[in-house]
């Protein structure tokens, strides 16, 4: 096999970054985000990014770091409520924002990865989301046409990964990671445990390696929790 394993996030992103590019970032809130690769993006100082991610981190962690450093030009998200820098930049017109219903966002990514350029959905019919979109009835119900999303680069976090790029996620840290892995022209994954080919159960690989071009063992994982909530 060609070598997919890279040493550290900086090397894993080398020669992939350019100003104005589109990047998908997996994760839901702070759960399952590619924290090492986000840190490397910040370090690279690549600018004018369009970032496709369900959320935009918090002020001092996750994608919020790239807001602080003003590397993001536009976000495509379903919910961005947890971030003051976001609000400030958006209200100052320093940041573009495209809201997608969460399921539409997920399906657009999956479609981009699966070679489906557009699909109809009933989500958003009769709302602001349908403005400017084709509306068509199927079985007497209105649906709107949504287009696929792809990205120049997808950054992904998995629990385990092997040297062929096969990935396994843990619990709800799976979320957008597998579908964004499919939709990246280049997909780079950081994993908590890099294992040998053959160590993962072939019946239970969530992202087949064909979708992953580069993989790194993450250096450290803070795995910060946004809202610790307990029964006490």
């Amino acid at each position, binding site marked *: 096999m060609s070598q997919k394993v890279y040493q550290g996030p900086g090397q894993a992103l080398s020669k992939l970054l350019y100003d104005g590019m589109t990047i998908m970032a997996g994760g839901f809130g702070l*759960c399952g985000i590619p924290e090492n690769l986000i840190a490397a993006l910040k370090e690279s100082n690549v600018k004018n990014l369009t970032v496709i991610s369900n959320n935009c981190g918090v002020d001092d962690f996750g994608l919020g770091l790239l807001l602080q450093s003003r590397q993001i030009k536009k976000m495509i998200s379903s919910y961005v409520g947890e971030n003051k820098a976001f609000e400030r930049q958006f209200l100052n017109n320093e940041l573009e924002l495209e809201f997608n219903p969460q399921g539409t966002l997920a*399906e657009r990514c999956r479609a981009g990865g699966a070679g489906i350029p557009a699909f109809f959905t009933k989500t958003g019919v009769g709302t602001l989301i349908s403005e400017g979109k084709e509306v068509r009835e199927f079985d007497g119900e209105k649906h709107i046409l949504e287009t696929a999303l792809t990205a120049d680069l997808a950054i992904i976090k998995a629990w385990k990964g092997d040297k062929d790029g096969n990935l396994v996620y843990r619990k709800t840290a799976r979320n957008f990671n597998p*579908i964004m892995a499919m939709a990246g022209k280049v997909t780079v994954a950081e994993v908590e445990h890099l294992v040998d080919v053959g160590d993962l159960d072939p019946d239970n690989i969530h992202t087949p390696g064909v979708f992953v071009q580069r993989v790194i063992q993450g250096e450290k994982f803070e795995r910060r929790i946004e809202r610790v909530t307990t029964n006490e």
Partner: protein
Amino acid sequence: MAWSREDMCRRAAMELQNGYYVNLGIGMPTLVANYVPKGISVILQSENGMLGMGPFPSPNEVDPDLINAGKQTISELPESVYFDSAMSFAMIRGNHMDLSILGALQVAENGDLANWMIPGKMVKGMGGAMDLVAGAKKVIVLMDHNAKDGSSKLVKSCSLPLTGAGVVDLIITDLGVFSCKSGNMYLEECAEGVSISEIKVRTEANFIY
């Protein structure tokens, strides 16, 4: 004498049927899980990728890889299943969820729902709400009957941007239970000690009773 929040949750829980797959929205709807009637068992979905969502964990069981759609830590149950976001919304959009219970800013006579955006204020996003109201077999709104300024949240026509058009089936407020059918709103039931005339006074929407 209107219903308390606990009364409202208890009333909403009466809509649950055994074996239902249910998505509970953030806020009061989440609390409905605490009032599931005896003998009824439901499976809770969390749209970030889980069926069989368990209660909040004990402090030593908190797991950063295990959160709900409100980003709170939760726990696993024997029946838990994890999946990705596309699969999660395939369930929702594909009409496989029996029930979605969520909050609202306004509900109109015709079942229109507004709950994601107030123009002029910072918009946080719709999250999964638009998909849930478009896809679930039944949509129940659980909300206060009147806003803090006293205005009716049951309106003739939504002034706020919609989350979904004609999507609401049932509304449970502190004053009673309303249904939306074929473009009309019906008063199904008054809260204990609440009269129809009181409801009329405090409601902008026309309703049939």
